[in-house]
């Protein structure tokens, strides 16, 4: 015979939130920021092949923090959604806001109804064009979606990194300055992060349809010099 105990919704939500936060805190953090010519995404990532930052569509990028297998599945779903939408309608109909909403719904559903909440935080970045604005959408583990005006931080130490980054970021800067500030904020005052442990991607207009570019270690070193 089994016993059922009453657990209040407040307690259940609190337990689940704690569980998700703990999982997310185990991974390294990442910063996304708008610079004068585009959007920068920087993650601390010791692996050169298990990416946290990825191209979703012509002007949309994805970043995840927390459990790799969980956010990677969301990344794949995002690429499928974007390519499918563009194939069915037109390339200009693929909008980051719609994708961010789908992610928020899914994370929200998993948080309340899933076996366990997803231990991830994700970011959908969109480079602006004549028909859409530049946007950073941060989606938390429980499905809260926030539209970040200039920069967003994901991961365990988000609060501390946010403060460090904001202290040097009163206005929009060049790619080089923004990258230096982001890497400094990720590292904190007591350590430095090797270039090989940084994953850097940008969304920037370079005259081609696709705007996502993954920067090589050499390019990152050059910018950080």
């Amino acid at each position: 015979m089994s016993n059922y105990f009453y657990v209040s919704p407040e307690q259940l939500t609190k337990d689940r939130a704690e569980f998700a936060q703990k999982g997310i805190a185990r991974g390294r953090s990442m910063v996304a920021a708008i610079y004068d010519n585009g959007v920068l995404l920087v993650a601390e990532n010791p692996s050169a092949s298990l990416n946290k930052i990825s191209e979703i569509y012509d002007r949309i990028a994805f970043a995840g923090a927390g459990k790799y297998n969980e956010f990677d599945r969301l990344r794949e779903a995002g690429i499928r959604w974007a390519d499918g939408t563009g194939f069915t309608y037109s390339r200009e109909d693929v909008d980051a806001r719609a994708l961010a909403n789908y992610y928020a719904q899914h994370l929200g559903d998993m948080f309340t109804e899933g076996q366990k909440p997803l231990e991830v935080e994700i970011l959908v970045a969109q480079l602006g064009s004549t028909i859409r604005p530049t946007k950073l959408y941060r989606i938390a583990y429980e499905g809260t979606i926030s539209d970040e005006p200039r920069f967003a931080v994901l991961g365990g130490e988000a609060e501390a990194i946010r403060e460090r980054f904001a202290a040097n970021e009163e206005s929009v800067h060049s790619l080089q300055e923004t990258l230096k500030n982001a890497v400094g904020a990720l590292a904190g005052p007591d350590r430095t992060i090797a270039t090989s442990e940084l994953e850097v991607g940008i969304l920037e207009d370079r005259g081609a349809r696709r705007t996502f570019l993954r920067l090589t270690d050499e390019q990152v070193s050059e910018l950080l010099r």
Partner: protein
Amino acid sequence: MGLPLYDAHSDPGPSFFQYAQTAGFAPSQHASTLESPHATTVIAVRYDAGVVMVGDRQATGNYIASRDVRKIEAADRFTAIAISGTAARGIEFIRMAQLSFEHYEKMTDSALSLEGKANYLSPIIQRNNLSTPLIVIPLLAGWDPSHRVGRIFEYDGAGGCYERFDFATIGSGTPFAENTLRLGFRTDLDREGALELGAIALYEAGDNDPSTGGPDFVRNIYPMMVTITEQGFQELDVDDVAARFRSINDRRTQSGGVAGGTLR
């Protein structure tokens, strides 16, 4: 369309075509007896630094439906796809190929090999051609960055994929273009030689095949000419192409409408 999430055992992987089938927006394969216009000549010639492609611009049904169709498109930076057969299916086929290669690259963070792209298209052609009379026969050519060489892949009606090491043609003008290519092809062709041979072969097809459009000096519409090399897919500009066809035309005028003894 909701968020396309799949379980590990039903995941379509990085194949966009597989996903499109799962999600239900891949082209339907219901049999139909509808015959629709098809006629074309597209030529691919291999040379020392890549591949030259030349394609006519005419869409033909019972009458000329369009004079400025693009039958060669870049599938990605290093790959070109040309189509012959039913226009509607051909255009859809190009979209599917373009999207598939990019989709694979985004999903896996690595580009498909040229041979991988060629093989990927086989079942798509097979599925289309064996289930409807709306036949599509494509031609794939590209620069293979891992082997540093230009390569050409042709297909039969059932989707069989064959690599060609010299040249290939598709469309109704094939017999005329192919004869010219067989006489003029050399293994040591350079860019200029390959462009010249491709243009003459297309001129021959346009001259003899009623469904292949030759150079249109009245409307200033000329066949498409592209090169695919280490620099990627590059289309020759219209003045360059016009000059080439004008020169062939002038030579033919001098020799009474035929090449006149040498391939020129």
